[in-house]
């Protein structure tokens, strides 16, 4: 049964992440090829391709499709997806660091999760991170010094995990989880549906769907290592919560929660007050 459940979630992940996203039973997974990550401001997208024993990473110019640079990295890495709508992550706000991730073991099983950090100018690997257990990429600070990871404790329909930070300059995992400053919760549950990131890359707002509960937004300050969980008062079943999207507006001052074309709630990004619309 557990296996079936894992398969079902994997299938959901593949569907949500796009044709080239490989599923994971506990995270949105990784993306190969396709849009990769980047391109909006920089005009360059970074794309990874899994080869039999290595990964090709390419920097593609968005305006004409030229491959400006490429490299081969030993191991099997992909661009991390941060939510089931296929939002990709891994690029720091300053555009200088690119984080690629591998698949780790299932939560509770033995094994390691590997991540690498590349310099986007040279595409050289500047840091390699190996962690025991089941981890996935969550965010990176604007200057690329802090990596935020999800440590998966349990997979399945009600996954449990916590957000941890890794100091890339000191090359060490920071003890303890990033605790929700509102409810003081360390362990989280729910499925990451969508992500919006502030223009400077500092704030990562992730909307999570939950079974039999309202959705919430996890607002992660990647500079101060702080997080705030904001419940969104919407009476929606989990499948409908999976259709929600986030849009930052008013120079990042408000975060709109949208259901298709309709804004159903607005969050003040300073006070985290929520208003239904």
């Amino acid at each position: 049964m557990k296996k079936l459940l894992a398969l079902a979630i994997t299938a959901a992940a593949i569907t949500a992440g796009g044709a080239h996203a490989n599923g994971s039973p506990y995270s949105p997974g990784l993306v190969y090829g396709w849009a990769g990550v980047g391109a909006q401001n920089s005009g360059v997208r970074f794309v990874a391709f899994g080869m039999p024993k290595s990964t090709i990473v390419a920097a593609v110019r968005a305006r004409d499709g030229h491959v400006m640079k490429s490299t081969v990295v030993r191991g099997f890495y992909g661009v991390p997806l941060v939510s089931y709508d296929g939002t990709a992550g891994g690029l720091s706000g300053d555009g200088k660091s690119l984080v690629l991730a591998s698949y780790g073991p299932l939560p509770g099983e033995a094994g390691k999760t590997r991540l690498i950090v590349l310099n986007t100018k040279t595409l050289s690997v500047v840091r390699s991170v190996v962690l025991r257990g089941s981890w996935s990429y969550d965010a990176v600070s604007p200057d690329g010094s802090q990596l935020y990871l999800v440590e998966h404790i349990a997979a399945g329909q009600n996954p449990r995990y916590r957000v941890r930070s890794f100091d890339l300059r000191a090359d060490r995992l920071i003890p303890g989880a990033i605790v929700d400053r509102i409810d003081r919760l360390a362990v989280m549950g729910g499925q990451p549906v969508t992500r919006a990131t502030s223009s400077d890359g500092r704030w990562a707002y992730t909307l999570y769907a939950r079974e039999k509960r309202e959705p919430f937004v996890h607002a992660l300050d990647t500079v101060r290592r702080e997080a705030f969980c904001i419940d969104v008062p919407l009476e929606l079943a989990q499948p409908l919560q999976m259709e929600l999207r986030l849009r930052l507006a008013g120079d990042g001052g408000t975060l709109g929660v949208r259901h298709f074309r309709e804004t159903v709630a607005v969050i003040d990004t300073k006070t985290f007050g929520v208003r239904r619309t």
Partner: protein
Amino acid sequence: MKKILTTLLLVLVAATFAATAGAQKGGPATTLFGGKGVLAPDGTHRYVALTTGRQTLVSVVRVHGGQVVRWLYVRGFVGVPVVGEDGTTDGISRDGRTLVLAGTPEGRPNDRVVTSFAVVDTASLRFRRVTLPGTWAYDAISPDGSILYLIEYENYGRTPTYRVRAYDLAARRLLSRPIVDRTIGERLMRGWAVTRATNSTGRWAYTLYARQGSAPFVHALDTVQQRAYCVDLPLELRRPGQMRLRLVLRAGELAVRSAGETVAVVDTQSFVVQRR
């Protein structure tokens, strides 16, 4: 170990010299990895080859947006053919259905040199390999992708000599007769491919060649009728000057340009040349 070193060398050569090394040495035309690849005839996508040395990844990149919408793996080292020292790439048939990637000539046991090509069906992204004994390079492909034109090198030393051959992709065989110049019947060609212009239907491939101690010439290849014409250009230019020439096609004529100035015009019907 020898194999690994050879592979590494090939990767280094490709990465360092990309499009120019072979042409400068007068050797087989080279292949391109990364960069602009080759543009699909409809201009919406480009095919870009990337390599690990042992494997080649052929990516289909959307021109507007840069998304890599499809890709395939090809075992070995094959890249987008470069048909001129100026970096002109080719390899896609005008109907957009066939993509040819060229390998680098490689030694086999008993010093037997072979050259491989990967012929890709762009709809299914399935490919097949064409391997020929000897040193070969891609030259052109017919508009419907049925005939592949290859350069067979006899010698690629200081003054390379070669002939153009046709390979029937449907019949999977090399046609026995070389493509002979219809004007003077010369089989063996000499010179360095500088630049290429292809007409809008993809039928005619005009390649300008530079020569040491002789005037440059245009090799006009009719990829449908399997015939070619060598058109000497009456230009008193030394080889470095010839290497800077470029071709521009416009309404029935082929302009030969140097530093933005038209120095000669070739009538594409009669092949009569006029100096400017």
